[in-house]
């Protein structure tokens, strides 16, 4: 039997501190759906995903009811579509099929309208990339991610230049909805193959046929634990570790049970602390609890580095397989503390870039002025990707140049995507650098200085 304190602790984590499972993401390989006919490829994709995932939402809800813990999203990730559609050139037909599947299964998001172009872009992949604005502006639940660099291949600057234009096109095509298509598009360096989080989820080529990956949440639980901690930073780190352990154990339990019921292999638990815009569910507020007047103050990067490391250390013992993006997320629009800090000017774009060097994942859900040029967006991408490539970590860019809005205005995305104050960025142009194209060679991985 447990002590009352243990039972009450668990119940309070869920009912008052917003502990939840952010997502059960069912990864489904589409390699066996490849044909040279557009129609047959789509039919096979439909049959395969529906046969594996038609019960996903129900199973997620059942587990949620039995454990008494919310499972906020049920998601599907698939093999990067550019690989599946290359033989038939049927990517536009596939997007319609995936959209229909997302509606019929009742899932929240489907990720994998993706391409891996970290070394070079084939002519077909270029055609595929150019279809992203249409794909994201005519669907609600489909997400797209593009890997433009790895630490071993370097940075494909032609793709970086193209992605700047594509982000702008996405913004324009959804100009009536605060350019929301950009919130469903991520540009990666060192993309991971087992990420359950959107918009960057896809199922990598090295993965099993069907895999359950789970993403936990729980910044509110960490903050509440820290409220009782008066010790030095060693004790703070210890407190974060112990809390992360408990959170992750639940993730492991959910992953095991979901994979059993879905007849899929049990993939990974992603240890990320994922915030939501709800008060009490903020990563920024954890940093402030550690002792910053506001996130964005000098000292923020150090606090975040410690938080990120302690979350991993606590989580790693709690489950058999850790993967995905695992760390602390700092999406601006999805975190009440980040939104406030950006609004009062405490948190700058440049500070966010520095923070991404020590945490997962990158410049995430940052709204920038609508008149930002494609070259400047490519410059933003190049900077962030370089941080990932040189430091051998995953980084990503999900910025939203909100059409018709300027710095100081606010963009509303709704739901988990939240609200974003539009942030100031540098006025100076990187155009000549971006227009050179080519590839930035892979960095040296010794003589680390």
């Amino acid at each position, binding site marked *: *039997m*447990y002590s009352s304190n243990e039972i009450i602790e*668990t119940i309070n984590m869920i009912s008052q501190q917003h502990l939840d499972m952010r997502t059960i993401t069912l990864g489904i390989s589409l390699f066996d759906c490849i044909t040279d006919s557009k129609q047959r490829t789509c039919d096979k994709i439909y049959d395969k995903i529906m046969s594996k995932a038609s019960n996903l939402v129900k199973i997620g809800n059942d587990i949620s009811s039995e*454990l008494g813990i919310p499972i906020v999203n049920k998601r599907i990730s698939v093999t990067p579509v550019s690989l599946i559609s290359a033989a038939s050139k049927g990517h536009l037909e596939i997007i319609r099929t995936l959209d229909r599947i997302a509606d019929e299964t009742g899932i929240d998001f489907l990720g994998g309208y993706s391409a891996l172009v970290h070394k070079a872009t084939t002519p077909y992949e270029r055609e595929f990339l150019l279809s992203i604005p249409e794909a994201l502006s005519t669907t609600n639940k489909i997400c797209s991610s593009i890997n433009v660099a790895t630490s071993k291949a370097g940075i494909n600057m032609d793709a970086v230049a193209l992605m700047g234009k594509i982000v702008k096109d996405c913004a324009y095509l959804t100009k009536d909805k605060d350019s929301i298509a950009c919130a469903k598009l991520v540009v990666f360096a060192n993309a991971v193959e087992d990420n359950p989080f959107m918009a960057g989820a896809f199922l990598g080529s090295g993965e099993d046929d069907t895999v359950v990956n789970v993403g936990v949440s729980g910044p509110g639980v960490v903050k509440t634990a820290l409220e009782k901690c008066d010790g030095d930073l060693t004790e703070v780190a210890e407190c974060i570790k112990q809390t992360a352990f408990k959170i992750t154990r*639940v993730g492991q339990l959910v992953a095991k049970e979901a994979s*059993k019921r879905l007849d899929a292999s049990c993939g990974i638990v992603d240890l990320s602390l994922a915030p939501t815009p709800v008060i009490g569910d903020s990563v920024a507020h954890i940093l402030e609890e550690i002792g910053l007047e506001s996130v964005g103050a000098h000292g923020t990067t150090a606090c975040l580095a410690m938080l990120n490391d302690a979350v991993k250390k606590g989580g790693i013992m709690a489950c058999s397989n850790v993967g995905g993006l695992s760390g602390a997320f700092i999406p601006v629009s999805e975190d009440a503390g980040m939104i406030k800090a950006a609004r009062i000017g405490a948190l700058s774009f440049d500070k966010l870039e520095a923070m991404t060097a020590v945490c997962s994942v990158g410049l995430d859900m940052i709204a920038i002025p609508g008149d930002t040029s494609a070259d400047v967006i490519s410059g933003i991408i190049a900077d962030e990707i370089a941080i990932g490539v040189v430091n051998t970590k995953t980084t990503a860019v999900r910025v939203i140049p909100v059409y018709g809005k300027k710095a100081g205005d606010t963009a509303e995305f709704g739901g988990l995507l939240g609200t974003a104050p539009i942030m100031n960025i540098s006025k100076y142009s990187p155009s000549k650098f971006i227009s050179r194209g080519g590839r930035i060679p892979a960095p040296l991985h010794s003589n680390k200085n």
Partner: protein
Amino acid sequence: MKAIVSVIGKDKKGIIAKVSTALYEMNINIEDISQTIMQDYFTMIMAVDTSECPLKFDGIVDKLNKLAKDTHLEIHIQLQSIFDSMHKIDTDKKGL
């Protein structure tokens, strides 16, 4: 299935009677029971076995939610495994 029923609320007469009656009516066996007063709140923890209950788990949750509303108490039922996983290190082999 082994589950934990937790009841939290302002102390008053008949709480144990009402909750155990509801469990009895669903053919749920109470295997252990403990209660304390924490911060002026009545807290009761029951370890139960639902294997002979004819309802599905969400049916049990619905019944207890209704009882919680009628009695102004907070009542949760959760499978034991969530507490095992959070508070014990060596029980990972068990499923739900």
